């Protein structure tokens, strides 16, 4: 009796959920889509989202409304996306932080990455470069490691706050290179750059696009890049992996991805993934992203899932190390 009642309930539930999904197969999307971005209008993640959603809206034949919900390093954008009730029409773009390190850094996060968020597609990645003032004692990475290794905390670096990409990358680098550097947190890359130029701090990891101008102006120099292969937007900058005692698999990249709330129709996720990959293959889109310092990525939803798991592990270990130090 109980079993058949439960079965009936499940059946009813399946029916309720299945009916709209079936209807959508024919007509999705039948109304505008909403994409949540956890950063303010005009910020780099916002511009990136617009570069992708403009052509996506054209492909889908429906407008895509960008919902800027800034705050807490992008976490609020994901929370708001998950709170939106409009299933199959609510999506988001996010940087790596809220998907990998936020569960460690933000108490009361309010979501579980694995259970609540469905990856759609990796949009782009950005390596970081190690920057020092033009008159810094060392001219290459080996010299930098020697200088930093002379005494603990003799060389300082700036980041954009605890747990930021710049902070974690510098700590990963220190760990792998066997040095200890003094961490000075700032709130923006522009502040870090100014502090390095003003000789207030020695170094910092930042996006190549944030540093190149100063290299051309002769006030900063770049010692290496954290990607596995050289980066077009940072011509002539050597890859760090395998140099100055760093392991060959050394890699630290920021990324930006298109996501959906868990429970979004599988067919819709697959369609969006295919459409986004087509858009990312367009050289014009690639150029616009490259101008902002992003390298187009693409790939399947499963590959993005894999990336989230891997990065959560890598950065989790770095956070363990930071926590152990304090």
């Amino acid at each position, binding site marked *: 009796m109980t079993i058949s009642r439960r079965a009936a309930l499940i059946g009813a539930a399946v029916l309720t959920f299945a009916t709209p999904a079936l209807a959508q197969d024919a007509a999705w999307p039948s109304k505008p889509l909403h994409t949540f971005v956890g950063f303010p*209008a005009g910020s780099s993640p916002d511009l990136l989202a617009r570069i992708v959603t403009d052509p996506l809206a054209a492909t889908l034949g429906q407008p895509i409304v960008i919902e800027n919900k800034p705050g807490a390093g992008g976490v609020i954008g994901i929370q708001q996306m998950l709170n939106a009730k409009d299933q199959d029409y609510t999506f988001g773009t996010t940087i790596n932080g809220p998907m990998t390190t936020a569960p460690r850094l933000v108490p*009361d996060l309010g979501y579980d990455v694995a259970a609540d968020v469905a990856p759609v597609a990796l949009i782009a990645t950005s390596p970081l470069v190690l920057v020092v003032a033009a008159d810094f004692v060392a001219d290459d990475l080996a010299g930098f490691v020697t200088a930093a290794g002379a005494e603990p905390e003799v060389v300082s670096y700036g980041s954009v706050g605890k747990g930021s990409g710049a902070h974690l990358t510098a700590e990963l680098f220190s760990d792998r290179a066997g040095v200890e550097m003094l961490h000075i947190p700032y709130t923006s890359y522009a502040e870090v750059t100014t502090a390095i130029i*003003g000789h207030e701090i020695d170094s910092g990891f930042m996006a190549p696009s944030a540093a190149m101008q100063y290299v051309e102006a002769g006030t900063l120099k770049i010692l290496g890049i954290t990607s596995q292969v050289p980066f077009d937007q940072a011509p002539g900058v050597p890859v760090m992996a395998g140099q100055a005692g760093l392991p060959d698999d050394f890699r630290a990249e920021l990324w930006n991805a298109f996501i959906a709330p868990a429970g979004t129709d599988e067919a819709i996720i697959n369609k969006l993934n295919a459409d986004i990959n087509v858009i990312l293959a367009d050289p014009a889109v690639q150029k616009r992203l490259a101008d902002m310092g992003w390298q187009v990525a693409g790939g399947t939803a499963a590959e993005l899932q894999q990336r989230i798991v891997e990065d959560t592990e890598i950065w989790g270990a770095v956070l363990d190390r930071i926590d152990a130090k304090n």
Partner: protein
Amino acid sequence: MSGWEGFLHGLSVALQPEVLIYCVFGVVLGTFVGVLPGIGAMATISLLLPITYYLSPEAALIMLAGVYYGSQYGGAVASILLRLPGTPQSAVTTLDGYPLAQQGRAGVALFTSMTSSFLGSFFGICVLIVLSGFLSRAATAFGAADYAAMMILGLVAASTIGAKHPAKGLAMVVLGLILGCVGTDVNSGAQRFTFGQAELMDGVNLVALAMGLFGVAEVIANIQVAERTGVPRRIAMRDLLPRREELKRIPFPALRGASLGSFFGALPGTGSTISSFLAYATERRISRHPEKFGNGAVEGVAGPEAANNAAAISAFVPTLTLGIPGDPIMALMLGALVIHGVQPGPLMLEARPDMFWGLIASFGIGNLLLLILNLPLIGIWVSMLRIPFRWLYPAILIFVCLGVYSVRGAPFDIFAVALIGAIGYALSLARFNPALLLLGFVLGPLIETNLRRALLISRGDPMIFLERPISAAFVAAIAALILVSVVQSLRRVRPA
């Protein structure tokens, strides 16, 4: 290219009809959104951002900048007439502007504010042309210790302005400092007083705080008042203009304010807030009638308004030449530049002279337009005061909600503004001045981060504040200021 040559070249860019029309559009729009309580330049610029895809980079930036400084003119209108400042800078304007309006002399306050804003901007533009190189070097020369010392000076100098009782003024500053602690600690990542609310992780929303303490509190306070008194039924042009002796009291305070604004505005962070408070404190200190301040002193409007407009101009120096945005609106401007493939930074002056000088020339044109536009509008703004309260106040509340929501689209902030409004009302009953709370709120977190950063850099050695010449100068000024106040109060206790 020298500064003046550059400026002339810029005029040739900014006076092109297709650029000029966007400049006009920007400043007119800016004035109106500035007047509407709560809906500021920030929301307007974010809405306009997607449209700029279809414009030339010069036209786009000139239009957005027009909205920015145009809203400074409009913001004074809401502060003076309704005690509704959208920013901490215009909160200073309420100190004497609103009493003037209550005395039926809103026109005088508006006239003072418009002309001083214009003088301030013009001064700022001249400084920019002559000294832009120096200002951008000054911005890199300032380290954490210097910022910390400078902001403490601002806090000490301004912490008793606008308060009849110094102790009440200090209480407000301290409350502001405490509120400023809310949010994520930059150094440790620890959550302070956020009570598990993700909306509080970046701190209390500044617009919600300003709107609640001033606007909503004012609406609550007026519920018991039947109708406004002291507003003339018909306004003659004569009543709009200041008396001759008042007119004489505008230029010098405006010039002093403008010099403070031009210098502090170029320092990223809180330049314009500090400069308006400092301008007010300076005017009160050197005035022969300090008791008039807070009761409708013209100088109390002229100084700060000139300062914040001059600062709005010189704030473009670090934004364009260093790529360091001083506030969220400047960050938005940077975003607009990046959309158009222009990377602001040290190379901008050489790489994009059209853009740089075109923008600066457009400041001159735009401010002239604003003065021409706003002087005739004074009569219309003043007649807004004749709108019956039953229409005016509900409308204000709606705009406040829209404005607060537009900052980051968080319903949380609307509840926050209601709660802060109730607190603001209680504070005004007890005759506390909320402008000082805003000062503490804005400066507190910056003092804290810079102080801690300076000590981290010096590996814990406090001598860094005396070893660096800039910070040593500020420390000396702080010491002198405290010494003077102590001596003055001792003299008052025991008359010689």
